[in-house]
């Protein structure tokens, strides 16, 4: 459709250029700039997507807007008062001024109100450094206090639930946490009580804050009112670095940021991915980082004694070679649904292509609880990848136990020991003692590694580069956030070295070469992308978290 000088422009035409807009979009003017956005967009989104930088506390892209904080007020031509942009849908030909003197002034006054009763806690507050109140005050006000009245005293340490502590004085009453419980966890556990400057956040009658998504309230809290019992007082946030990765807790594969410092992981934070986890992740997933630093197998063991890598690999090779020479039909391999696609591909290549073994089993954590929000019953991050790479050749752990008991299997190579012995991890679940030879490539000092003749240390998910395939079949990249524990090596690397000791040729130089080869061979990975190289960003430089 072409606009000619004789025909009037269509009603939703761009006011400055006169060009017609698509029927489901709206054109408005923000700070003198003509902007076209989809119909139904909130004004604050239209502003911030176009660089206007409107501040906010209570608005959250993943939640409804109650417009309680009044921090996103902007001037709209024709309106008698500034309007809350988080609560105002865009309208045609709207003329918006985000930095008019009046808008700036009312926002400053709101900040002043918010700060009147805010405690002087920055030096001891966990949120300091990623606090939105600090950021907005310094960006938009930065004036000294005009008021030296006595601040209202409230409770400093309120135990809300198993994971969370509330400091009512720090709370700025934005109600984001209430909406997270209501809208994400679908569980009304938090409420506001009292009025005016005595208003406080509290649990709903008869409730504690114990829903499986409760730690999301800590993420959305713009100040340090809600803090995680696990993280509080453990680290100043600006000292942390962030590495993007994927949670290994279940088959959902929530995208996370691993926050770490000096080789130690301190917390996991959900990373926005609208196709998988949106803004959120479950509490259970947040604690998967703990296993990275607990009971790790740090050095290769041969006969229970720490030895050099060369010696351990030679011993493992000799044991396996002897068993293969004696009777290859009695040799089996256990693959893990906790391993990356790259480790699984290297193991499958060694097992099926080079050694021609017939006995392969799939291990993994036992099934657990699930819901229809995020949590999956399959507690392994890469079952889909393992099944696809195994291509029907993998049998179950029950088959493994039966084969060992019947004597059909005398030699076993286990790569990844999570869940091999079942949920309780009791050594009796699998009759490992009946095996003649047991070689383990594992992450932890558990009963499986303890029963092995040779145990080789494997990197945990936070130490490895690779990909997981989630329950939707999406191949997602994980990245090494911290250096490996002790002498641990990635699985593909150990298997390359082991292959050499077994007389097979399988040379992989880094995880990306494994990925590239796997991608060319495996149909489920054909659209996968390795992504660009990523150096950890220190949060103080990131500028994204307050």
């Amino acid at each position, binding site marked *: 459709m072409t606009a000619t000088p004789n025909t009037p422009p269509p009603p939703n035409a761009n006011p400055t250029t006169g060009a017609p807009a698509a029927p489901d979009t709206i054109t408005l003017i923000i700070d003198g700039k003509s902007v076209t956005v989809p119909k139904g967009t909130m004004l604050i989104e239209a502003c911030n997507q176009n660089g206007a930088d409107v501040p906010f506390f209570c608005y959250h892209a993943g939640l409804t807007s109650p417009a309680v904080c009044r921090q996103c007020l902007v001037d709209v031509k024709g309106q008698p008062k500034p309007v809350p942009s988080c609560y105002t849908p865009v309208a045609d030909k709207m003329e918006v001024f985000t930095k008019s003197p009046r808008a700036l002034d009312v926002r400053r006054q709101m900040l002043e109100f918010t700060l009147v009763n805010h405690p002087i806690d920055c030096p001891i507050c966990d949120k300091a450094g990623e606090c939105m109140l*600090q950021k907005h005050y310094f960006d938009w006000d930065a004036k000294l206090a005009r008021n030296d009245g006595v601040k209202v005293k409230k409770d400093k340490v309120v135990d809300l639930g198993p994971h969370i502590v509330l400091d009512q004085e720090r709370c700025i009453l934005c109600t984001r946490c209430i909406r997270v419980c209501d809208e994400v966890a679908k569980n009304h556990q938090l409420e506001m009580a009292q009025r005016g400057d005595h208003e406080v956040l509290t649990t709903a009658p008869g409730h504690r804050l114990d829903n499986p998504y409760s730690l999301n309230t800590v993420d959305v809290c713009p100040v340090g009112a809600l803090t995680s019992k696990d993280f509080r007082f453990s680290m100043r946030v600006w000292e942390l670095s962030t590495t993007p990765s994927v949670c290994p807790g279940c088959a959902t594969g929530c995208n996370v940021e691993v926050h770490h410092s000096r080789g130690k992981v301190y917390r996991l934070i959900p990373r926005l991915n609208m196709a998988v986890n949106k803004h959120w992740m479950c509490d259970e997933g947040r604690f998967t980082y703990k296993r990275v630093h607990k009971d790790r197998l740090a050095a290769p063991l041969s006969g229970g004694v720490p030895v050099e890598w060369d010696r351990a690999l030679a011993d493992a090779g000799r044991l396996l070679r002897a068993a293969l020479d004696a009777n290859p039909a009695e040799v089996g391999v256990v693959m893990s649904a906790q391993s990356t696609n790259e480790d699984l591909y290297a193991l499958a290549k060694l097992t099926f292509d080079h050694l021609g073994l017939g006995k392969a089993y799939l291990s993994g954590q036992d099934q657990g609880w699930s819901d229809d929000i995020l949590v999956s019953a399959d507690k392994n991050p890469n079952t889909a990848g393992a099944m696809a790479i195994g291509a029907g050749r993998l049998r179950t752990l029950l088959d493994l136990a039966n084969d060992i008991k019947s004597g059909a299997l005398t030699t076993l190579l286990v790569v990844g020991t999570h869940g091999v012995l079942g949920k309780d991890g009791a050594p009796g679940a699998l009759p490992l003692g009946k095996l003649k030879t047991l070689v383990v490539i594992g992450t932890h000092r558990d009963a499986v590694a303890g029963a092995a003749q040779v145990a080789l240390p494997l990197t945990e998910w936070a130490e490895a580069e690779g990909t997981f395939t989630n329950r939707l079949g999406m191949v997602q990249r994980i990245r090494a956030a911290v250096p490996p524990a002790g002498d641990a090596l990635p699985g593909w690397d150990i298997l390359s070295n082991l292959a050499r000791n077994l007389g097979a040729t399988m040379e992989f130089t880094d995880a990306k070469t494994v990925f590239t080869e796997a991608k060319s061979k495996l149909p489920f990975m054909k659209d996968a992308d390795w992504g660009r190289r990523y150096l950890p960003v220190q949060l103080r430089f990131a500028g994204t978290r307050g």
Partner: protein
Amino acid sequence: MSDLDDHDSNLVPPKRRVVLGFQDVEDMNVPDLPTEPLPLNMGPSHPAMHGTVRMVMEVEGEKISSADIQIGYLHRCFEKESESATWTQIFPYTDRLNYISPMLNNIGYAMAVEKLLGIADTLPERAQYIRVIVGEVSRITDHLTCLGASAMELGAFTVFLYALKAREWIFELLEEICGARLTVSYLRIGGVAADMPEEWGKELLAVLARVREVMVDISKLLDRNRIFRDRMDGIGLITREDALAYGITGPVGRSTGLAYDVRKDHPYLVYDRFDFDVPVGSVGDNFDRYAVRVEEIVQSMRIIEQALAQIPPGRWMHPDPRITLPPKAETYNSIEAMIAHFKLIMDGIHVPPGEIYSYTEAGNGELGFYIVSDGTGRPWKCRVRPPCFPATAVLGKVLPGLFIADVVPTFGMMNMIGGECDR
């Protein structure tokens, strides 16, 4: 002595030779013990090398035929280190550039950041005057140290003690104003850390009067001292062309006749309000460099006296709360000031993205800071142009042809400061 250079091809065989003594010019032209060029190391740790620098020279007897000046022994990663420090945290690093006149480094760095921030024109006047005063005081200590140390290396130990005595009086005054004699860190982005103490100006004037007396004593000891003059006059000649080609500024550049002084040619702070002269040399030898420094001390005192007479009352830090820390009492008692303090200390002052080259007249000449900001609280790049770097570089050209004994006064008069040259 120039006869030494005029080798008569009839008399001197192509072989190298050493000169054993020189009672008579004739003696020197007589070929005697045949020998080979000898490599000679001076430094990096040598009592007469005040600065860790290494000179690998090739000598023919006492005469230097080539000199290779090797720097870097005091490299401290100033520039890389600055990239992970906030804009304010860099001040202590700049103290350690030219550590004889740290205030001048503070000024050079602060002005570069202020220009990037766009507050260079709105600095409080009092802060600018204080900067001029402490800067010129530091220039005096810089020159006193250079003169005293060089004189001592030529045997005039008394001059060294006199010069350092005077320097000490000034250091005590600096201690009064900022708490440190040397590692001052007195400047801040947007002003200075604290006001001048009361009566400080009067104490300074009294000290300057005593420094004047010391300067008279030093002049009496050196100016007509035969030993001193013999080792300074005509030694270490630098031509104006070489000075320009190498980019030499400051007293060394001015000794060659180049009347370039950033304070005069590109006035900054309030230097355009003072009446002072820029001394220049006529020959470009070591004695000219000595004389220029002596005169610069006198001119610095003139500037200080005028500044103390003109200095207005008022604030000494920029009023912008996003640049200046709130008062401590406010910080501990109000959340607003606490947040401002937190953001300024932990995040740093947010300097708008851009790049700048800013230059000031430091003790050794044009001290330049090339700074790139990406909008965060830390510089993306912070490069220093050290004024003694070109002066040290030219030694490789100046030294050949001189005697080993000439190295000491020539190097001394370049005033190479390891902290500044190597960064």
